[in-house]
């Protein structure tokens, strides 16, 4: 038995039957991180002392049999854009390199209350701006399946930490595919929940109307377990839903026979890697064997999803990142500053990487007088059409099925010189965020020895159906159990 490879469900059984302790499990995970992560570089910060303290507390809870939850004593990692009190939270940016939050995100508090054990914070594209993790201001993260390839982004560190068995679960964040795309590249299961299902309080904002915190796990069962623990209403985030959080795992085994899958025809166009397409077709056949009906549907505005997504992202990010001004927290560069404006100019020039600068400037451009109607307002109108596309398609089927990316993980450096080319790798994952609908990514095969991911897209607040359909697939396939040779 390898402790670092356990699922949450397996570890929970061993912990509650006292076959292992959380301290043992946590020590094994920390040891593995120190042995293997120098090759992968998925962690920005490893929290050894905090983890061992939390593990000891978890063992006490288990010994007393009090407040034991499915996550008590389970080691996890978290994307470095989610605030952790007294633990550095960097967004992989120089501007926050030494920033130590004075408060916890709601998700951090919920996980601490559940007894989960934080082993570290994971690398990401700076402020979530990227699709390969290469925009981290600190270092590149490597894909555990092939170290010359990217892990995807922006939650690339989270995905790599799961793939290389450097955490039992991980918390990512998905603004336009940032959980699903790296999950697909690294052979990990992950969900972008419905917008408003999980509190954003304490998440360092990228796009406030898109951002969704979501779990990354070894399988659908674990994903449902973690989502249940972190979802729910929060008085600190007025966009969270009041409706109760379902006990997702109770209905996981309901048969999928008779349900209908929609295949959006616009997602199957030229440019898709042959091995990706064949893996997706094979997954569709698997569902047919399980008794599901498959039907082609149309999302007619799909080709506009990418410009809508990026325009709105630029605009909201430009406004959200105005807070990094070198006066109240974070980096401050005030060399020969004559006035406060000099501090802003110098701090932001030195503190932000190129991609962040590009997006802030293009956002200001899209919002500026003379261009507002043509870009920002136009994008918000087409966003209405994108939402209608999903409503219409999902009215006639139970879920949609699509790839997470047209290709498998590309090589490090392959797309860094052309920002637009990099944006295009998000083509299948961005549309769900402007629409707000949930989507579950899961492994569905390999192409040229690299993992292929698919996503199931569902109706608002219907994560239950995604988990049910995803779980059914993982009962008859073992792609999600494949581990990289590391």
């Amino acid at each position, binding site marked *: 038995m390898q402790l670092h490879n356990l699922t949450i469900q397996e570890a929970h059984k061993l912990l509650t039957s006292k076959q292992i302790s959380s301290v043992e499990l946590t020590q094994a995970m920390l040891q593995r991180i120190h042995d293997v992560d120098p090759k992968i570089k998925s962690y920005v910060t490893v929290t050894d002392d905090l983890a061992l303290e939390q593990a000891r507390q978890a063992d006490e809870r288990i010994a007393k049999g009090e407040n034991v939850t499915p996550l008590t004593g389970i080691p996890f990692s978290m994307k470095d854009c989610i605030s952790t009190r007294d633990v550095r939270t960097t967004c992989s940016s120089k501007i926050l390199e030494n920033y130590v939050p*004075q408060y916890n995100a709601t998700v951090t508090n919920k996980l601490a209350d559940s007894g989960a054990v934080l082993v570290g914070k994971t690398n990401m594209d700076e402020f979530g701006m990227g699709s390969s993790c290469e925009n981290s201001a600190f270092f590149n993260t490597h894909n555990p399946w092939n170290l010359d390839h990217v892990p995807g982004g922006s939650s690339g560190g989270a995905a790599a930490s799961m793939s290389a068995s450097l955490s039992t679960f991980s918390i990512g964040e998905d603004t336009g595919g940032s959980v699903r795309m790296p999950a697909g590249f690294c052979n990990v299961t992950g969900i972008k929940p419905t917008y408003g299902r999980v509190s954003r309080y304490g998440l360092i904002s990228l796009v406030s109307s898109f951002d969704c915190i979501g779990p990354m796990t070894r399988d659908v069962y674990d994903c449902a377990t973690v989502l249940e623990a972190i979802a729910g209403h929060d008085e600190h985030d007025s966009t969270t839903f009041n409706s109760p959080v379902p006990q997702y795992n109770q209905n996981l085994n309901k048969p999928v026979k008779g349900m209908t899958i929609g295949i959006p025809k616009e997602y199957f166009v030229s440019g898709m890697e042959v091995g990706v397409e064949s893996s997706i077709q094979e997954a569709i056949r698997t569902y047919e064997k399980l008794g599901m009906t498959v039907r082609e549907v149309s999302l007619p505005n799909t080709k506009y999803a990418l410009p809508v997504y990026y325009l709105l992202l630029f605009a909201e990010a430009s406004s959200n990142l105005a807070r990094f001004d070198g006066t109240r927290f974070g980096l401050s560069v005030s060399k020969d500053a004559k006035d406060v404006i000099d501090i802003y100019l110098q701090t932001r020039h030195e503190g932000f990487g190129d991609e962040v600068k590009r997006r802030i400037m293009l956002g200001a451009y899209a919002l500026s007088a003379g261009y507002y109607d043509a870009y920002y307002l136009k994008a918000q109108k087409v966003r209405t059409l994108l939402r209608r596309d999903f409503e219409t398609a999902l009215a006639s089927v139970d879920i949609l099925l699509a790839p997470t990316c047209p290709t498998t993980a590309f090589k490090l450096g392959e797309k860094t010189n052309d920002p637009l080319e990099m944006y295009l790798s998000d083509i299948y994952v961005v549309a769900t965020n402007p629409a707000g609908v949930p989507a579950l990514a899961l492994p569905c095969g390999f192409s040229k020895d690299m993992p292929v991911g698919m996503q199931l897209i569902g109706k608002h607040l219907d994560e239950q159906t995604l988990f049910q359909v995803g779980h059914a697939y993982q009962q008859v396939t073992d792609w999600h159990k494949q581990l990289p040779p590391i």
Partner: protein
Amino acid sequence: MDTNTVKHIATLVRLGISEEEAQKFSGQFTSIIDYFNMLNEVDTDNITPASDIANSQNILREDVVQPSMSRAEFLKNAPQSERGYVKVPTVLGEE
């Protein structure tokens, strides 16, 4: 987009920028904006712009004073502070 426009936008968003950067961004911005112009193909007459996602009801609560982060705690992250305030250089110009 020419380099002067790039520099003007950089000023608006309080971003210091070098001549070299302005030139690099100018070319990149032009190709990105050209790509965005494909939205002009879409007929959006009579389409209401999206202004919320799904959870559109107002959530109201009593406005009750509650403890918040202490001043000392807040100032831990301030690059410069003095007598309990965040310190910055001149904001309103010379006396």
